């Protein structure tokens, strides 16, 4: 029982202290956020579950999952009903979080460096960075698409890894599923739910 109390207390303490406010400047925002994530994922005192909770919290707070969901839906977002879009958004969020935690849980230690930022418009900035793997592998260039409509709260919309946009890849994957199911959004929702449950 004592162990359980300590465990629950440590989870509460972890959750309450895990998310900190990051800078509103896109360059500093990415730098602070990624440094924090790297530190947490490298922390040997945290178990897998704690790391996954942290990743989910960060994603819900700092990734524009709603816009990402609409983008990946493509043109269908304009012709689908509000109920369908709402159902899709719920499934997409669960899918996105599961997929993200799965990718990041295999994280191996790396160094991270911001290269530059390019303000494309009033609403978005591309922050360029590179990851230097500790295992001696080649540097990986990552561009961050940051949405800045609310200048006080920048949000991540896409990661472009070595020129490959994760959002675009996802969009084209969904387009293929929709195309083979007569553009039925419900078929896509079923596929997303199946992924979450597996």
């Amino acid at each position: 029982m004592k162990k359980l109390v300590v465990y629950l207390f440590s989870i509460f303490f972890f959750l309450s202290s895990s998310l900190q406010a990051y800078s509103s400047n896109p360059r500093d925002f990415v730098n602070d956020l990624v440094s924090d994530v790297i530190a947490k994922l490298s922390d040997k005192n945290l178990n897998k579950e704690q790391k996954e909770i942290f990743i989910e919290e960060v994603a819900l707070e700092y990734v524009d999952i709603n816009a990402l969901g609409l983008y990946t839906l493509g043109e269908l977002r304009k012709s689908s009903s509000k109920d369908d879009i709402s159902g899709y958004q719920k499934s997409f969020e669960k899918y996105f979080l599961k997929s993200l935690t799965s990718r990041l849980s295999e994280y191996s230690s790396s160094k991270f460096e911001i290269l530059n930022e390019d303000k494309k418009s009033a609403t978005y900035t591309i922050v360029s960075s590179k990851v230097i793997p500790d295992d001696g592998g080649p540097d990986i260039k990552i561009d961050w698409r940051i949405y800045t409509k609310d200048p006080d709260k920048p949000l991540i919309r896409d990661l472009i890894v070595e020129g490959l946009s994760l959002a675009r890849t996802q969009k084209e994957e969904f387009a293929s599923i929709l195309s083979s199911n007569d553009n039925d959004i419900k078929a896509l929702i079923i596929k997303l739910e199946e992924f979450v449950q597996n």
Partner: protein
Amino acid sequence: MHYLKNFKILVPVLFMVFLLGPKLYSAEECFEKTSRAVFKFNMALDDVILEPLAKGYNKLPSPVRKGTNNFTSNIGTLLSIPNNILQGNFKQLGHSVGSFAINSTVGLLGVLNPAEKIGLNPHKEDVGQTLGTYGVSTGCYFVLPVLGPTTVRDSVGIFADTFIDPFAHITIREKELLSTSGNNLDYFSVKATGAIDFRAENDKNFESLEKNSIDLYSSIKSIYLQDRENKIRNSIEDQDDWGSLDN
């Protein structure tokens, strides 16, 4: 005379690409059902042959893997040289020629990469990319057995590569160039080693992609097409298509 014969084969092929290219679009499939079946076959082949080889390769000491990567990349630079000329990219031509000359000599036949240390970074160029820079569109997408994803333009490029690649010239065509010659085995050994090296380097990425894709075939298609676009533009800058969502 030999080049003239090759040229006669290449002209109608290139003409066909120019004629067909602009009418076809990158997202279009040539014959999706067949491509998906071939993709399935390729994945099975990967499970049985390439993946175990890649995992074994990854257990080799890092300097051995690095040396192998340098060696195959250095030979690959030979294909970039004629393509740099065809693209009129003389800056890159300097990088390719300089890199190959330095790495093949000072770099112990390409095992080391001293050229990189003096700022020579040749981009890999092939005929598919050259056609892309000429404005030939991709044509439809399909999957080749063993070789994997391609498009009409890139498959013509793969074929044309063997005519202008000096390494292919001295190996599969068994011609002598600067007193050097080889055979089919040399050519396919280098290509196979390059494929294993690539697969090994991306082993974790493949695993993650397989695990997190709802439709792996489409994910690989998207990645392939994006990568080819970037290589043709010689840039990895994102192509903005967020439209109204960015307002």
